[in-house]
């Protein structure tokens, strides 16, 4: 339908706000970020330019690839951890808990930590995992170890634990939704045909829940990939992630052009991941007819 003069004011009233939002807060900033990535730095200032020096630096200096690979590894571990915890939890909520009231209560208790400040929740892990922390007090008082261990905090394991805890609701929410939408008659039919519980799970429930697995994993992965708080709070000297690198380039190192080039690269990585995830989602879709 073409716009006629009569519908234009209505169209403008409805869509001008979201359009302005997308333009001013997404398109323009991304444009600025991408173009600053080609600028030149002359310490301590930087000048508009068009050259690929910043990208050359990112790919030639091993420190950037090291950090990007480390970030991908941490994000992958966090996603696996969240899936390993989130799937059984969502399954339990949907199929095992019979009372709807109890199910809602349990579901809310998974989601409710999102209302508490992220910083506070991450900081809590410091108190749990520290040398003088809660976990060590427990281990020492029960006699499992004789002296507090310092292996829990300030390393990549602590970062993965903290991030799994923080992002697990983002995994549970889509999984809960897809599992809850699986028609019970399909499971009954499978059982009527003499298929055992494990094969029913594997052949019926898993394929039908793939959409939720992909949605939850994508969200968890992207959130973990961009995190910069866990490395600062519970990470050790080998915990620097790509977002910390960005922070440094825009902060202490005062190299906005390099920072912008790096941010553009991060954007590309995330877009590629989203593309893969949407392909997987389409490929794994099962028609419920």
């Amino acid at each position, binding site marked *: 339908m073409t716009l006629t003069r009569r519908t234009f004011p209505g169209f403008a009233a409805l869509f001008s706000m979201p359009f302005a939002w997308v333009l001013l807060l997404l398109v323009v900033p991304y444009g600025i970020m991408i173009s600053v990535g080609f600028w030149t730095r002359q*310490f*301590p200032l930087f000048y508009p330019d068009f050259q690929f020096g910043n990208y050359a630096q990112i790919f030639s*200096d091993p420190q950037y690839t*090291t950090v990007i690979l480390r970030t991908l590894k941490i994000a992958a571990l966090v996603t696996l951890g969240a899936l390993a915890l989130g799937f059984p939890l969502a399954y339990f909520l949907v199929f095992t808990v019979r009372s709807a009231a109890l199910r809602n209560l349990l579901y809310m208790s998974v989601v409710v930590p999102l209302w508490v400040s992220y910083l506070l929740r991450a900081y809590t892990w410091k108190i749990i995992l520290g040398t003088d922390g809660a976990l060590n007090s427990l281990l020492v008082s029960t006699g499992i170890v004789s002296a507090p261990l310092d292996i829990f905090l300030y390393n990549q394991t602590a970062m993965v634990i903290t991030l799994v805890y923080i992002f697990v609701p983002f995994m549970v929410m889509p999984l809960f939704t897809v599992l809850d939408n699986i028609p019970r008659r399909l499971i009954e039919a499978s059982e009527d045909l003499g298929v055992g519980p494990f094969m029913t799970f594997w052949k019926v429930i898993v394929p039908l829940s793939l959409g939720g697995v992909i949605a939850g994993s994508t969200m968890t992965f992207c959130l973990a990939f961009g995190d910069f708080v866990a490395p600062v709070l519970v990470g050790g*000297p*080998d915990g620097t992630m790509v977002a910390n690198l960005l922070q*440094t380039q825009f902060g202490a*190192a005062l190299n906005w052009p390099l920072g912008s080039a790096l941010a553009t690269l991060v954007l590309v990585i995330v877009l590629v991941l989203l593309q893969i995830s949407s392909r997987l989602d389409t490929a794994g879709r099962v028609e419920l007819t």
Partner: protein
Amino acid sequence: MNEEKRGMSMKILKTALIAAMATASVLAQTATAMSAELNILTWEGYATEGFISKFEAASGCKVTAAYVGSNDDFAAKLAAGGGVYDIITPSLDTVPMMRLAGFVAPIDTAKVEGSADIYPEFSQNGDVVAEGSTWAVPLIWGSVSLIYRPDKFASKPDSIAVLFDPANKGKISMWDDKSALYWTARYLGYDNVFDLTDEQLEAVKAKLIEQKPLIRKYWASAGELTELMANQEVFVSNAWTGLTSKDVNNLKKGFEVVEFTPKEKAEGWMDSMMLVKDTPNEECAYKFMSFMQSPDGQCGIAESTGYFPVNPKAVAGCMDEQMKKDRQVDNVEFVKSLVMWQQPKRLDKYLEVWNAVKAAP
């Protein structure tokens, strides 16, 4: 009853709304009343209630302070959004860069009461007075030394080597700052720490990367180091002399931390106040710089930090003899026993090396 309840909650909601609007308008008013406020970007302990309230009462200027964790934060914060701060207090090694980057304005020393009594070693320093103008008003000085837990070491360490000793694996911390390069360079025996050659920088970088598995955590603020020490996460680190030991020992955790100067020397620094270019609060800024040279200002900041005053005349009447001795009053010669910070000749190269160390596995 129900109706009444609803009425009550409506009333509470209304009150809350009015309170919120009132707060917003008060905030807006303070924002417009430019002449009566002062925003300082400074270090922890440099704007504590004790002496700042005296300044606010005397000048009528409301002080808002934000804090930095290292000298590299000043340029970053000013580049990101100038105009928010009126006074910054970088260390001497960062003063030239603030001027070269055009972040600060020259200072009219005639408007700073008491500035004539500052140690000339500081007030006439080649980076403080440059291009025929004065760019900074010295505020406080001190050293960066090592801090350790005597109960965890068989003998008292005397060298920077303690930070690189595999025996202390997992119990070492270091300041997350380019000065890690200065410490390592001294440990490696280089005496040109602010002008290292490429080969020397490579050696320093290799040594720091080799040290990484021994490090529990790089500390980013004095508060973080205090926490690491108090929670027994680390036993030895470099630290801002005076501040961390005072804070940790005040917590009375059942152990003590002690500072020491390694044989490779401790580092010396001097922080000074710089006037941010085009500040709308210039009058308050000058009042503040004058106040900080007064007995209340110099003794106030010396007490809250454990550092050394730059104005011996100001502290003459407000410090006892023991404290004067501890804080090196009238002993500016002490400077010569320290490696005084300077801006590295190739500052960006130093920052790059430090960032590469942090990114390394």
